[in-house]
C-alpha cells in the first residue's frame, strides 16, 4: 500500500512541484495519473520509490516511511520505468540490460536466465536478445526498459508514459499485460497523456494540476466530465466527446467504451426507426 500524506516538494530552482498531495493506493490497484505538462505527475511518482523525498509531509510504502529506506531497497518493491528509455538503458545487448539488476540483487544464474527468457517473451522481444538496445526503434527500446524492470518482479510498477511510440497492437498488448499483472495483485501506476488508452483500460484516474490532485475517481466518471478535464488540460476521449455533443437526447453521459456506445445508439436508432 502507498500512502501519501500532505506532501510538499520544491526543486532547487524554486519550482514548487507538489503543494499538499494526499492519497492512498491499495495493493492491486491500477491508477492512471493524468494532467497538464508540469502539473507534478512525475515528481509525485518519483516519491513512491524514494527517488525524491518529501520536503514536508510523509510517503509510506507498506507502512514504512520512504525517508527510512534506501532507494536500492525501495526499488526492489517499486519498479520505475522511465518516460525516456535512453535514461535507463546502457548495456551492450538487450539480454545484458535485463540481467544487470538481477545480478545486482544477487539472483542465481539459472534464475536470471529464466527471468530473462520470461520477460523477453512477455514483451515480444525474444528476437532481439543479442541485439544492442541502441539499434532498436524508440518503441522497442521502451519495451526493453520495461522488461528489465519486470524481470525482478517488483510488487508495484510505475510506468511513466508507457504508450509513447507504441503502435496499436503493442498498446493492446500493454493493456493485456497490465490486466494480467493485476490478477497477480500487482499495483500498477501509469503516468500518461493517452486518454484513449486510459478509456480502454478504465482504471482509477487521478487528475493533477499545479502540484495538486484535483480529481480522483473511476475513468468512466472523470473522463466524461469536460469541466474538470479542461482544468487538467485533457481532451475527453472520442466516445465521450460524441455523447457530450448529443445533449437533448437524455443519453447516459458516462460512456467511454466504443462497444457500449454502439449498443446504446443502436437501441435508440432502431426504436426510432420503427
Amino acid at each position, binding site marked *: 500500500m502507498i500512502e501519501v500524506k500532505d506532501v510538499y516538494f520544491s526543486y532547487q530552482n524554486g519550482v514548487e512541484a507538489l503543494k499538499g498531495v494526499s492519497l492512498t493506493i491499495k495493493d492491486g490497484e491500477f491508477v492512471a495519473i493524468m494532467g497538464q505538462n508540469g502539473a507534478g505527475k512525475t515528481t509525485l511518482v518519483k516519491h513512491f520509490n524514494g527517488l525524491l523525498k518529501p520536503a514536508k509531509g510523509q510517503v509510506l510504502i507498506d507502512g514504512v516511511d520512504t525517508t527510512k529506506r534506501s532507494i536500492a531497497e525501495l526499488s526492489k518493491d517499486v519498479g520505475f520505468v522511465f518516460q525516456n528509455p535512453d535514461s535507463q538503458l546502457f548495456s551492450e545487448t538487450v539480454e545484458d540490460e535485463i540481467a544487470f539488476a538481477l545480478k545486482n540483487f544477487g539472483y542465481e544464474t539459472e534464475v536470471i536466465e529464466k527471468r530473462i527468457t520470461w520477460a523477453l517473451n512477455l514483451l515480444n522481444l525474444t528476437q532481439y536478445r543479442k541485439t544492442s538496445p541502441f539499434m532498436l526503434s*524508440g518503441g522497442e527500446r521502451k519495451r526493453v526498459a520495461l522488461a528489465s524492470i519486470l524481470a525482478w518482479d517488483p510488487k508495484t510498477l510505475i510506468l511513466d508514459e508507457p504508450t*509513447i511510440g507504441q503502435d496499436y497492437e503493442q498498446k493492446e498488448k500493454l493493456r493485456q499485460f497490465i490486466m494480467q499483472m493485476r490478477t497477480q495483485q500487482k499495483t500498477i501506476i501509469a503516468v500518461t497523456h493517452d486518454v*484513449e488508452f486510459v478509456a480502454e483500460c478504465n482504471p482509477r484516474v487521478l487528475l493533477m494540476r499545479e502540484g495538486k490532485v484535483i480529481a480522483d475517481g473511476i475513468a468512466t466518471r472523470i473522463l466524461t466530465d469536460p469541466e474538470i478535464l479542461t482544468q*487538467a488540460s485533457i481532451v475527453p476521449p*472520442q466516445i465521450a466527446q460524441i455523447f457530450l*455533443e448529443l445533449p437533448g437526447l437524455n443519453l447516459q453521459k458516462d460512456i467511454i467504451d466504443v462497444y457500449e456506445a454502439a449498443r446504446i*445508439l443502436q437501441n435508440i*436508432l432502431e426504436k426510432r426507426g420503427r
Partner: protein
Amino acid sequence: MAIIETHNLSYTYPGATKQSISGVSIKIEQGEFTLITGPSGCGKTTICRCFNGLIPHFYQGEMTGSIIVADKKVSENPIHELAKHVGLVFQNPENQLFALSVEKDVAFGLENLGVPRKEIREKVDWALKLAGIYELRERPPHELSGGQQQRVAIASVLAMQPRIIVLDEPTSFLDPLSAKKIFEVIRELNRNLGITVVLVEHRLDLTAKYTDHIIIMENGKVMLDGDPHQILQSEEARLVGVGIPKATHLYRILKHEGIQLGDTVPLSSEDMAKLLKEALRTR
C-alpha cells in the same frame, strides 16, 4: 504537383541484413497534409530520414530506387541544401536541442543560412509564439520538460518556414490539450501558407481529421495509400493493426449492425456527432 516522389525506393542500414524500406513508390502533392502510420518498425521513421537526405548521406547504408524532394534528387544533394526545403522534427526532442537558450536553438538554422539579424528576430519570435513557448525563450532547453522540449523542436523548424515540414510523433510528450493546439497550428500553417506537412503518428484519434492523404506501411512496404475516409474504413487498415479513430470504429460497428449513417466515414468525434444528430432528426 508532387513535391515528394519516390520510385521503387529501398534502403538497408549499414550492418543490417534486412531492408528497412523496400520498393516504396509514393507521391506527396504540394500543400498536402499527409499522415504516415503503421506498426512499430514498419519503416516510417526511415522514410522520413530519406526526405531530408539524412539517408543516405548521414546514415550511409544501401539505397536503391529514386527519391526527388522539392525538385531535387536526394542522392545528389547534400543535407544542408535539402534542409532549406525540408524541416524535420524528431521523435525524441533531446536529440535535436543543444543551444544554451531556447531562442538560440530556434535561431540556429536561420543564422546558418545567413539571414539578416532583424529578420531572424522576427521569425524567431513568430515561431516561439506559435509554439506557445515565448515565455521560455531565455531558458536552457535541457532544463525543460519533455513536452516543452518538443515545442522548442517544433519552433526551430517553423522558424525556417520550409516548404515541407516532416514531423515524427511530434507531440507524444505533450498533454492532450497542448497536443491538440500544436496540431491545429500545424494545420493552419498548412492551409494558410501552403506548407506541405508529413506527419508520422500512431494516434489516429488525434490526427486523422487533419489529413488529406494517408499512407499505411508494414514491414518496410506501403500497404495502403490514398484518401483517409476510404483507407480508414477498409478492412485492410484493421488487418495491418492500425488503431483507427474511435469515431470511425463506432461508425463501422453500427454499419455492421445494419445502421448506415451517411456515406462519408467520420474521422473525428465532431463528424460522428453530426451524423448521429442527422440520423436522430430524420428518424
